[in-house]
């Protein structure tokens, strides 16, 4: 055996040649084990999905794409944003893949990576942001404020007309507040949320 100078890779440092796969990244972004690696590609999820026909990829396709490391395509897909969170797929999945929770994780990743802006559902995160903004500031949701912030800014035209007619009807029926309600412990809540943001990550 010819003698060669072999440099060993120190084991206390991550192997520079092995990067964490996109699949692992997605799995890590879901609390607990989402069982994504157990997916059989059977397609029960897409077949059970009420908004499946309007999705650019069915959940099954999306999972195959995650496995193939197609990061940008996955994060630009409208699929997670068109998920209505009905848990039909999860109830039927023979492998108990936590599909709805994976969709939430993909939404977070798409925003984090900035890919959601290139999605055909680019407005969807803005709705969530408008909603959450009131919750963070008041401790309660505020429909009129969300509608105003989201529709007046994002959707002048038809959608705005519909939102306005609904808003007026809601007020007439005593079903919509004109001002937001603030909880007493809003400071306490914000402290908790700040700390949670610092801690970041999932388990």
């Amino acid at each position, binding site marked *: 055996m010819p003698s060669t100078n072999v440099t060993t890779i120190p084991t206390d440092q991550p192997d520079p040649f092995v990067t964490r796969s996109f699949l692992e990244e997605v799995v890590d972004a879901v609390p607990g084990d989402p069982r994504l690696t157990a997916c059989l590609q059977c397609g029960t999820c897409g077949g059970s999905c009420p908004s499946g026909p309007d999705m650019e990829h069915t959940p099954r396709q999306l999972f195959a794409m995650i496995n193939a490391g197609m990061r940008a395509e996955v994060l630009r897909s409208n699929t997670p944003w068109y998920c209505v969170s009905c848990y039909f797929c999860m109830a039927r999945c023979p492998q108990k893949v936590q599909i709805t929770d994976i969709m939430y994780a993909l939404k977070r990743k798409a925003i984090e990576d900035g890919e959601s802006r290139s999605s055909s559902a680019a407005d969807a995160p803005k709705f969530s942001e408008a909603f959450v903004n009131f919750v963070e500031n008041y401790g309660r949701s505020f429909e009129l404020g969300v509608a105003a912030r989201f529709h007046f800014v994002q959707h002048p035209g038809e959608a705005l007309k519909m939102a306005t007619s609904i808003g007026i009807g809601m007020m007439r029926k005593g079903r*919509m507040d004109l001002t937001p309600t603030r909880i007493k412990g809003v400071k306490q809540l914000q402290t908790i949320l700040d700390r949670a943001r610092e801690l970041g990550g999932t388990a």
Partner: protein
Amino acid sequence: MKPSNEEPYGYYPGCSLEKNALAYNESTSAVANVLGLKFEEVADWNCCGASEYLALDILPAYALISRNLALAASSSGSHSLVAPCSACFLNLSKVDHQMAEVPALASQVNEALAAGGLSYQPGSITIRHLLDVFVNDVGFDRISSLVTHPLYELRVAPYYGCLISRPDYEGVYDSPEYPTGLDHLMTALGAEVVDFPLKTHCCGGHMTQISEPVALELIRRLLQNAHEYDADVIATLCPMCQLNLDVYQEHVNHAFGTNYHIPILYFTQLIGLALGIRAKELGFGREFVSAKRALAKIGKARPAPKKKRKPSKEALPMPQATEVEYR
């Protein structure tokens, strides 16, 4: 777990019941008074984040929800937390469940809560949907014994929506796709219950805000199905379902050239009517699609039992469905 007589239920109304689903809150408290159910509202509760916060930031979303769990667990002697809104119910039980399953998550959530002087031990309270209280604690027999104005001839389509029976972390419901508790509850009121095929299909949730055509199609399917089954009303147990089917019904009619007129009522409103509570105290009049025409059917005499066709002697035996009996 049924609380003892003295122990009230912890109550988490959620943002919707404060305003857009006021009728749900009003009818719940009116019915609770008659039945002697005690609901103690969690002091200074906050929004559960609906399906929005989880899309943005996970740990703050869990911390937001768990503040409510911590407040509920530390207040009074109640060991249960009842949510009438299916989305709130799901969020509260999801966090409770996942904190129990993933200890590392529980410790992160508790670290965040500690910044506000709070803590929560997963599993220390039982999270329940309001329907569960009526079905499993009050019971069909007790309710039917209190009915003074039976809903004979009112055809009710029981609509569960998604989040009550799926994913059902607490394992309370008989089926994720075909639960029957609300059906039996409506039967106990004397109503003619429609075997509603789309009973657990999705109303679209917040989809009206994301893509209106997708949302309106989901709503149309449900209305069409109820219409095909000749339902007078759809009974709901979730503010989001009520809002989508009721408020957007006119928009569905406009978009698809249909002419649906199906009032969407909270199941508690129907219980209230059957118990003889006045419609005004039950939040009637807040619905966009007026329930007046349907309500005019109530107060009629018990219909004559339907005649059964005798099977021919040569016919093979058929499986028998369970008899639905008017009380």
